[in-house]
């Protein structure tokens, strides 16, 4: 196996591995966070992993966007439009959920006087 095929093998899975890594990093940050706003940010990181995975799945070598305002249909190979639509949905969902979570965090800061999950001493048992 030459070094060139090793490189190809890496580029064949690298995007997926990056998505997996970003997802895991986000989960780690969420579990160990000491600040709820930071935790919400980590959740956003987790979500960006889903964007990367979806778009990586839909990519086609040498393809271009399936948008035919400036190219003739059929003149070039195109990538998968469906994953792009899914990701678009996902981006909007992510932004709105982030807003909701931040709204709850603001209220927690008001009612508990802290946003450190270690100091939230209710709801035990």
């Amino acid at each position, binding site marked *: 196996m030459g070094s060139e095929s090793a490189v190809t093998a890496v*580029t064949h899975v*690298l*995007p997926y591995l*990056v998505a997996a*890594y*970003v997802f895991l*990093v*986000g989960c*780690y*940050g969420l579990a160990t*966070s*000491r*600040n709820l*706003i*930071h935790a*919400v*940010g*980590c959740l*956003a*990181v987790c979500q*960006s*992993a889903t*964007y*990367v995975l979806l*778009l*990586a799945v*839909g*990519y086609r*070598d*040498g*393809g*271009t*966007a399936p*948008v035919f305002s400036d190219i003739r249909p059929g003149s070039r190979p*195109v*990538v998968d439009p469906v*994953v*792009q639509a899914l*990701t*678009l949905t996902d*981006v*909007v969902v*992510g*932004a709105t959920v*982030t*807003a909701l979570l*931040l709204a709850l*965090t*603001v209220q927690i*800061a*008001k009612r508990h*006087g802290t*946003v450190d999950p270690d100091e939230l001493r209710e709801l035990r048992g």
Partner: protein
Amino acid sequence: MADAVVVVALLAVAGLATAAVANRDPARQALVLAVLGTALAVLFTVLQAPDVGLSQLAVGSALTPLLIMLSVRKVRRRSAHGKDSKQ
């Protein structure tokens, strides 16, 4: 070799994601998240998804940082307010 730019964008996203998790102060994290949004937009462009790139730019570079920074400001102002009243 055409993949070089994809690899660059992927590594940038991975690095920025790590930085976003590692920076525990929310204001600093918001800065990293803003740059992460830009890097994701680049990645989406090189993956030939300009539509997604546009929405990521719109959401990631101004909206999300603004929301986070407003929350940070509210939370900080609260704690500052609390300290004042204790004194």
